[in-house]
Each structure stands twice: as C-alpha cells, then as structure tokens.
C-alpha cells in the first residue's frame, strides 16, 4: 500500500549514507588539501562577482520599497533598520545560497555525473581512491567555508547599496542610515545570519554530489542530475530557512 513511499525513502537513506561518509572523511586520512583550495577558488572566488551584484541590487531595491512604505508613517529615517534586519537574517543568506546552488550545485552534479558515466568514479575506486574522500569531502569543506563568507560580503554590499539610495534619493544622512542599520542588529541576528549559510552550504554540496554520484544514462542522465541538484537544493534552502527562522523566533 505504501509502495509509492519506497523510492523517496530509499533515496533519502542513500543521501544520509553519503552525508555521513562525507562528514566522517573530514577526520580521516588522506586529506586532499589541494582539492579543497581548488574548490574554494571555484565556488568562492568564482561566485564573488554575481553575489556582489545581487547583494547590491537587493539592498537598493529594498531600500526604495521600504522607504515608500515607511513614508506613510513618517518613519523613512528608519529604513536602515529594516534593510539591515532583512538582509542579515534572510535575504543575504537565502539569495546567496540560491545563487550558489544554481551555479555550483549544478556544476558539482554535472562534473561528478560526467565522471560517473565515463567510469572515472569506478576507475578511482579500482585504483585505490575513495571517491567520497577525493570528490565529495573537499567540496563539502570548501562550500561550508566560503558560503558564510560570501553571505557576509553580500550583506555588506547590500547595505552599501541601501546607503547610496538612502543618501541620494531619500535625503537620509549616512550617519543616520548606518547607525540605525547597525544598532538594530542583535547577537541573535548575526548567529542566525551565519548559521543559515553554513547549513545551506552543507545542503548545496551534498545534494550536488549526491545527484552527480548516482547519475545513470549517459549525457541525458547528466542533464537530469544537474536539474535535480538545483531544484532539490533550492527547495531545501527555502524549507530550512523557514525552520531556522522559526527556531530562532521561538527561542528568542
């Protein structure tokens, strides 16, 4: 009767097995340090321009929209607070993660998927290398390290974008904007703003690797794996952000 649940449950079980092995390998030799730095370069430095651009425009747009709403209450001067909270708590982590998912979960899935269908993964195992140690763990470590950094940069650039609009279009002084943006932030917000990208990074790297490593069916299979990796990691990002937000609201 519950046969329809069998496949998703098995898939999730396989995902958990891969995740546990990838995390366990962090503490096992050999460590592929060169691969970690290479992935940091690909994921971190490679994503930096687009993350900065999106961060800037999200700050700009939000400042313009919020200023209009606040104007009705004569509280336009407080726009820095709203932009700051929204960026640090939600928009910064989520937008950055979705961008990195689109760019890197797909990249990881297609790279590993191509290796799978050309038997490079099997060759690796036959030649004495654990593919999870060599391919998955470095991507996991690299993403977990660079995504929080990218988020911090996106938040900061977003706030700068907001400051430019506040100063140039809304006649709010920079001191007022930055003071209100900074003072509203609490320890709780910063923890939330850094915990989220860390968790999203685990999801992006593991989902990308998972669908890449189980690719079948030649080049069409690589395409399917890439699409699934982006869709699944994006859905998980939105689901997890609501769960984490609920958790922090409840405990604060």
């Amino acid at each position, binding site marked *: 009767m519950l046969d329809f649940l069998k496949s998703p449950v098995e898939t999730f079980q396989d995902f958990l097995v891969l995740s546990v092995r990838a995390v366990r390998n962090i503490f096992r030799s050999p460590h592929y340090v060169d691969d970690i730095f290479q992935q940091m370069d690909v994921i971190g430095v490679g994503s930096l321009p687009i993350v900065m651009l999106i961060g800037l425009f999200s700050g700009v747009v939000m400042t313009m929209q919020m200023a209009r709403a606040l104007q009705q209450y004569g509280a336009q001067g407080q726009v820095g607070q709203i932009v700051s909270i929204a960026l640090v708590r939600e928009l910064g982590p989520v937008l950055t993660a979705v961008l990195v998912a689109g760019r890197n979960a797909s990249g990881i899935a297609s790279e590993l998927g191509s290796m799978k269908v*050309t038997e490079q993964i099997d060759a690796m195992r036959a*030649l*004495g290398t654990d593919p999870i140690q060599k391919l998955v763990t470095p991507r996991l470590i690299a993403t977990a390290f660079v995504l929080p950094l990218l988020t911090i940069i996106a938040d900061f650039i977003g706030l700068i974008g907001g400051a430019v609009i506040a100063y140039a279009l809304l006649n709010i002084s920079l001191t007022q904007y930055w003071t209100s943006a900074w003072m509203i932030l609490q320890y709780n917000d910063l923890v939330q703003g850094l915990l989220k990208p860390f968790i999203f990074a685990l999801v992006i790297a593991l989902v990308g690797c998972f669908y890449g490593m189980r690719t079948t069916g030649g080049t069409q299979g690589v395409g399917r794996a890439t699409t699934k990796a982006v869709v699944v990691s994006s859905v998980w990002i939105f689901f997890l952000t609501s769960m984490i937000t609920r958790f922090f609201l409840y405990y604060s």
Partner: protein
Amino acid sequence: MPQDSPHREVVRFEDVSLHFGGTPALDHVSFELGAGETRIIFGAAGSGKTTLLKAALGLIKPDYGRIFLFGQEITGMTEQELFDLRARAGILFQEGGLFDSLTIEQNVAYPLLNQRVLRETIHPNGAGQQAVAERVREILHFVELDQTLERFPSEISGGMRRRVGIARALVTEPALLLYDSPTAGLDPITANTIITLILKERELRNTATILVTHRYLDGHLIANFRYNPSSGALERTSRASGGAGSVTTKFFVMKEGRLAFEGSEAELQAASDPYIRKFQRHGSS
C-alpha cells in the same frame, strides 16, 4: 609486485546473482580463473559482461553468492579492505575511465601514487618520485605512446586512449587483468594493435586475464596466437588444433546474466544453440 604461482586461484564466483531494479544482471554465475589462465567473454549488450568484471573487483556487490579474489572472499569486505586487493589487479574500462583533468603521465602514474600498498613499496619515505616517472615512461613505451606524456585524454584519439588505459592497468604489474571491450568502436587495424598489446603482455608476464569482447576475432587471436618478442609480430602457437593459449583459454557466452556457454574455441564452434551461434566465426544463424 605480487606474483601468483601457476594453478593458483585468482578469481572464483560461487553462484553469484545480482539484480538491477528487478532485472537480473548476473544470474547464478559460477566459474573459476587460475593464475596464467584466460577467459574470453562474449555476449549481447546488457547480458552482464561488464557487471561480471566489476563484481570481480568488488566495485558492485552481489545480492547472492560469494566472490573470491586472490583466495579471499570479497563479498563482505569494506571499501578500505578492498583497496589493497584491487592493487593486485588492473582493469581497462569500456569507457576508458581516464581522468580527463589529468595528463596522460598523471593518469598512468595514478595507481602507483594512490594505492596504499604500492605507494609504500615504490617510494618508501616519500622518495622515489623518479622511480614512478621512470616506470610510467617504461609502460608508455610498451604501449608505444612515448610522445604523449603531457597531453590530456581529450587531445588523443580513441585508440590511443584505449592504449593509455591498458598502460594504466599494466603499470602496477598486476596478477589479474580485466579488459572490458578493449576493441569496441575501433577500426580493425587499431583493434588488432590493441589485441597485439594484450598478447604481448601475456607473453611477457602470463597474467590471469578476463577479456570481454563483441569480436570473435579477438578471442580467436588470444586463444591461438602468441607474441614473438624477437620479430615483434604475432605468430600462431605450435599446436595446430588449439595452441598453447587454448589450453588455458576458455570461452564464455553470457545471456541475460547467465553463463550460457563455457568451453574451448572448438566447442564454441560446434555449439548449435542459436544464441551461441551468433558468436561463432561464421556465426549469423
């Protein structure tokens, strides 16, 4: 490098079955391969040939039955335990399996640098990079690809990639060699070059070999010809009706995961089953 004495068991399958989503890939397969022996496996696409090779190295686990590699049961072994055993085997994958981000030299050196047992043997105390480089050059010379060291797999032809794959399989001087369709998709001249290399290796080291192929000619050459090192050419083995090779060379035909035929070349030629006849010399029934 480890060498097995003649008649010593290298691979043994005991009633091995394996399914992919309900479809049998291997169906109660049993056979044994001794040191110095060769098995030629024919079969239609999807009949389980590649699965059999991968199962022999523990790359795929069977659902049922037991597999022994170098006398040790691998069915329940962990991946880490299998690494040391796999270091004694070489495999040429159907798709080549060359790492496209590494040069030819790095590809061939990969097993020497990554297999724990070999790493410790070849360059103890971290010294010996030179020995690895020399060994890589030596084996690339063996497959006549001396000039490709710095090139990437995407920059060379399909036949050359297959030869690099053979070089990577041979570089560790393994006690077991598995070739998955080494001549598939190649022109007849290149295919014969590949078979010559396989015979050359057998002549020099007499390694236990399993060869999967679609070409009857591949099996025929391996069963009846030898490589003459002095002339550098193939020559028919001394016994007219079945050369020295055919004493230790057996033919398998696989059908839907089963071993539908097991025997000598002469027995294969005499078979009357319509499916098996497809793999005979004049075999379109």
